[in-house]
């Protein structure tokens, strides 16, 4: 397997703050690679180092086969987290300008293709300061992809978008992957990451805490959350040893089974006394895993342990 981006033991410090700590990651070519992590965890710093806008203090960064280079790489497209466009330029002029800067001289067809694709053709003659926030974001997205880059880095591409525009951008990203483009994007939306990413990478306090496919990540966390229902809606959930974090969700109960109890033992006890008509094991969602890892009060030592083989998202912390 070839990799579009490889980082080995990469660190970055700002003054006394260690923003990124000995990070390793490999982004398979032609995949969608999701960056997740709470605010200030080092996502943007890592993306900027991949882009070489920031220089790493140590470690090796290889982007599209090159170990060193400048931020200026026409093979890489970038949508930064902080959006910004020349307010007094017309959309068509702005897109042409960025396409030219990215080395695509004959860009008329590409610009029109992307404007059509993102339903923005009617706005091509408007000035940027006339656009809505969502439309500006779509135009900025086009600036990142118009020159047909091999690698696209999108920092929070969905933030501030309504569901319709979100779907438009999501479809565009999925299409890029189909064409063989490698896409790295960061997001706070776990549902989006689950649905779109081939590989998910989580960084917390500058350290890598998750890296793998959704399946691989979920398998590292045991399915110890249960959802059940009784024939009678009025039946209360009996108090059983090992059953914690009980919640009523509609006609269902959801609860976490704490060791040494097991879901099977809990089910056996319940069947003895009640008429159970629904019982399922819930796999931890990416949201659960994220929240579990990114506890604000998580001690540093715990962060270091997070890459241990079987951490538990519902261990009652």
């Amino acid at each position, binding site marked *: 397997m070839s990799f579009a981006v490889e980082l080995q033991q990469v660190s970055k410090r700002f003054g006394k703050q260690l923003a990124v700590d000995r990070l390793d990651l490999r982004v398979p070519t032609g995949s969608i690679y999701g960056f997740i992590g709470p605010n200030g965890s080092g996502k943007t710093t890592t993306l*900027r180092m991949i882009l070489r*806008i920031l220089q790493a203090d140590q470690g090796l960064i290889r982007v599209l086969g090159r170990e060193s280079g400048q931020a200026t790489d026409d093979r890489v497209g970038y*949508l*930064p987290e*902080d959006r910004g466009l020349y307010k007094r330029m017309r959309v068509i002029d702005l897109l042409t300008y960025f396409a*030219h800067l*990215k080395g695509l001289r004959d860009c008329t067809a590409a610009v029109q293709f992307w404007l059509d694709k993102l339903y923005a053709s009617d706005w091509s003659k408007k000035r940027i300061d006339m656009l809505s926030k969502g439309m500006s974001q779509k135009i900025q997205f086009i600036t990142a992809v118009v020159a047909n880059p091999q690698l696209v880095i999108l920092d929070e591409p969905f933030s501030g978008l309504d569901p319709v525009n979100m779907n438009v951008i999501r479809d565009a990203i999925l299409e890029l992957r189909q064409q063989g483009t490698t896409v790295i994007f960061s997001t706070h939306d776990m549902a989006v990451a689950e649905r779109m990413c081939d590989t998910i990478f989580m960084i917390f306090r500058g350290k890598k805490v998750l890296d793998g496919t959704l399946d691989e990540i979920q398998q590292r966390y045991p399915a110890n959350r249960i959802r059940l229902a009784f024939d009678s809606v009025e039946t209360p959930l009996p108090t059983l040893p090992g059953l914690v974090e009980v919640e009523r969700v509609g006609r269902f109960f959801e609860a976490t089974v704490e060791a040494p109890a097991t879901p099977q033992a809990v089910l056996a006890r319940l069947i003895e006394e009640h008429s159970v008509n629904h019982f399922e094991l819930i796999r931890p969602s990416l949201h659960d895993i994220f929240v579990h890892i990114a506890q604000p009060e998580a001690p540093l030592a715990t962060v270091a342990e997070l890459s241990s083989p079987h951490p538990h998202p519902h261990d009652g912390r």
Partner: protein
Amino acid sequence: MTKIFTIAIREYRAMVATKAFLLSITVMPLLMFGSIIAMNLLQKVGGGETRRIVVADGTQFLFPALEAAVAARNDQLHHLHNDTSERGGLGPDINRFQLELATTPALTDEDRLRYSSEIRAGTLYGLLEIPAGVDATPEIDLESLREGNLPPQVSAKFYSVDSSLSEARQFLQVVINKSVKTKRLAEAGIDPLAVELASLPVEVSGMGLVEREAGGKITAAQKKDELSTLMMPMGAMMLMFLVIFLAAQPALESVLEEKSGRIAEVLLGCATPVQLMAGKLLGCVAGSLTIFGIYLLGGYFIAQRVGWIGMIPYHLLPWFIVFQILGVTLYSSVFMAIGASVNQLKEAQSMLLPVWVVKMLPFFIWLNVIRGPNDLVPTLLSFFPPATPTMMVLRLATGAAIPWWQPYLGVLVALAATLACIFLAARIFRVGLLWQGKTPRLVELFRWAARG
């Protein structure tokens, strides 16, 4: 190079294809030459009222002379409305005067108070009190006069709310002195015309230098007037200041927009900081040459209309353009570095203060430069790189014989300084563009420039 030109074209369009550009190239000369233009405008559109002045003539002799002079002045004002080119000895006040004799030639304090009240109420403009005997020849023996002793002066008094600056006061004073002088000369048995003839001044004309043409013929020197001597260097200095300012300021605003508008990060993914800066500088130079071209055409058109076409210093144009390019590049790179270091225009303005002081140096001494373009201070300042473009052009515009090598050395000095400035500014630019913290102090800027 393609990216540099792409950036340059955008910067040029952003600078020139705006209403703000048209407004600034119109407004800036108005601001700089505003006082002269405003004075002329006021003289044309203002005034028109009649100012009443009461004269208490204790001499019983001067009033007719004053009345005649005022009538002549009013007549001249009437013609001025029809022909604005003939200003004669008129000052900025173009109101008519109307003289009236006071009820009594010798005023009491009560009279003065009454007239003062009228002046305060605005029904009267002024009161001229001429005491008796003011026209008499002072009695003093000639020996004492030769020793430098002057006879006691009897003065007339003019009362008005603006008496110290009043043009009416100055006008009436001239008439009184002329009339009194004529009377005293006549009393002494001297023909006033003979005195006037004897007092005719000998003019010492200011001439340009004599030159030998290519064919060997020696050309006659041209007479120099005050207008060309003062206005040409001042105009060249102002124009240099304008073209630099009008190009460097948009450069700062452009960088600031890219930084505060979060465009810089995307741009750095498209072009290197050096390419970005080079493109912007190229755009600035192109923009400033456009401004120069517009002013040059405008100036040529006006000169043709008013008959000053012969005053256009064609020999100065190549030097002006060379120094303009250097000056624009130098100042734009500094402005860009500052724009990249701050987050708001307000912060940039305070950091630009020292740059402005240096930029304004020629303005502080321009009159001295015109009087002595080859003096030590002007010469030294014209090799001080931030002042070189303006100072060297100012010196050349005086038409004085600047040693031939000095403009060339000035170009070299300015070029070296510009290149160094671009190099250091590019380092600040690169760090500053992504700097989002507090505004760096000057020391930190120097550190960025040193370390890169």
